[in-house]
């Protein structure tokens, strides 16, 4: 509950809306407006209206390359955060409607989504399925290679810095990933404009024995493996991959039998929809 002396009327909030969206109110006043907006039955359209100008103002700022020391500091800080997280229990996966249903259908070949009206002849699907298996094998091997190369802390830091840069770069697609059963585990997937895909998770417990984490790209409910995620001792998991096929809308994480699966065998415990950064 806010201090009653600072409680604001709708009119006062409307009057302060411009200064509020520009962050030009004293902090207590800012908090009062925020509290009012959170509880008011009025939608306060004027605040959103004025606020929509703020990203345009931010776009006027010329990007400056952050000094290398900053990247190191950011990574240190984020890693400290991860280390501060309380010990995690292994979360049980939750069912996500739709995903599971899609998987119980006969496995469709992994291919770029075709227009609904066009159905490939049987031999074409078979060929596509073979090609898909080959692609998965190559991606899997490649992901393993990256994980081995990224094993050193230094290399991982470099990848993380790139991933973080991609997360805030214009032209990137971002999905925020959260473990629905474990508040401590969160991360993001960033598909940068240069064609690289990054997946970073923080706070994941080690995969249960005999299992591994696997990332998936989903296009029209059709999953494609994005590689296996190895959780480091500090709860970090970083994956670099080439861009998924176009039309990918969702990035999802599942627990799979060790070695990974060709198609998901369990419902995702984290998934996020891709949106422009």
């Amino acid at each position, binding site marked *: 509950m806010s201090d009653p002396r600072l409680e604001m009327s709708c009119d006062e909030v409307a009057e302060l809306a411009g200064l509020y969206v520009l*962050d030009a109110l*004293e902090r207590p006043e800012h908090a009062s407006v925020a509290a009012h907006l959170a509880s008011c039955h009025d939608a306060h359209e004027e605040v959103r*209206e004025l606020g929509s100008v*703020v990203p345009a*103002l931010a776009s006027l700022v010329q990007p*400056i390359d952050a000094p290398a020391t*900053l990247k190191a500091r950011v990574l240190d*800080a984020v890693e400290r955060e991860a280390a501060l997280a309380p010990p995690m229990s292994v979360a049980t996966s939750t069912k996500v409607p739709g995903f599971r249903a899609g998987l119980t259908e006969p496995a469709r070949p992994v291919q770029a989504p075709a227009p609904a009206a066009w159905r490939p002849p049987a031999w074409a699907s078979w060929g596509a399925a073979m090609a898909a298996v080959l692609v998965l094998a190559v991606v899997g091997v490649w992901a393993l290679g990256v994980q081995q190369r990224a094993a050193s802390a230094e290399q991982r830091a470099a990848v993380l810095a790139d991933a973080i840069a991609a997360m805030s770069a214009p032209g990137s697609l971002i999905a925020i990933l959260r473990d629905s059963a474990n508040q401590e585990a969160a*991360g993001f997937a960033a598909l940068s404009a240069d064609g690289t895909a990054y997946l970073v998770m923080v706070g994941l417990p080690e995969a249960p024995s005999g299992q591994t984490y696997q990332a998936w790209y989903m296009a029209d409910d059709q999953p494609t493996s994005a590689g296996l995620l190895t959780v480091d001792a500090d709860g970090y998991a970083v994956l670099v991959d080439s861009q998924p096929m176009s039309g990918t809308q969702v990035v999802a994480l599942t627990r799979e039998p060790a070695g990974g699966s060709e198609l998901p065998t369990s419902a995702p415990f984290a998934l996020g929809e891709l949106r422009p950064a």
Partner: protein
Amino acid sequence: MYGLAMRITNDAQLAQDAVQEAFVGVWRNAARYSAARASVRTWILSITHHRAIDLIRRRRATVALPEASETVAEALTVPDVWPEIAHSIDVDAVRAAIAQLPDAQRQAIELAYFGGLTQVEIAQRTESPLGTIKSRVRLGLLTLRRQLEEPE
């Protein structure tokens, strides 16, 4: 992020602090991010903005308020060449829209957003009543919104 923080703090050390704190804020609040309300980029930039402003206000509390510097107002009128071409259309439109604002409105918005001043500080700096600052900011933002909604 760093560019925005530099713009507000005008100090490499503070800007780095702001970005670092913003990232920690992003991690801590990832679970509260709502895709319906803003893009990730906007969200991250607003966290950065908020942190940068916290930091300069904290510093101002110990150091005397700096004299009105040219840098804040000047920066918006200098034609920057942007590296990303995809950005140039938007940015030009925004810049043009801001240039068309009455001086007093433009100054109030710049002091608030890029200067990190509070309404009271803006009123002191521009020797205007508080109510005037409120309406200048509101009118200026409304005009910008209208301009940016109907590109020529």
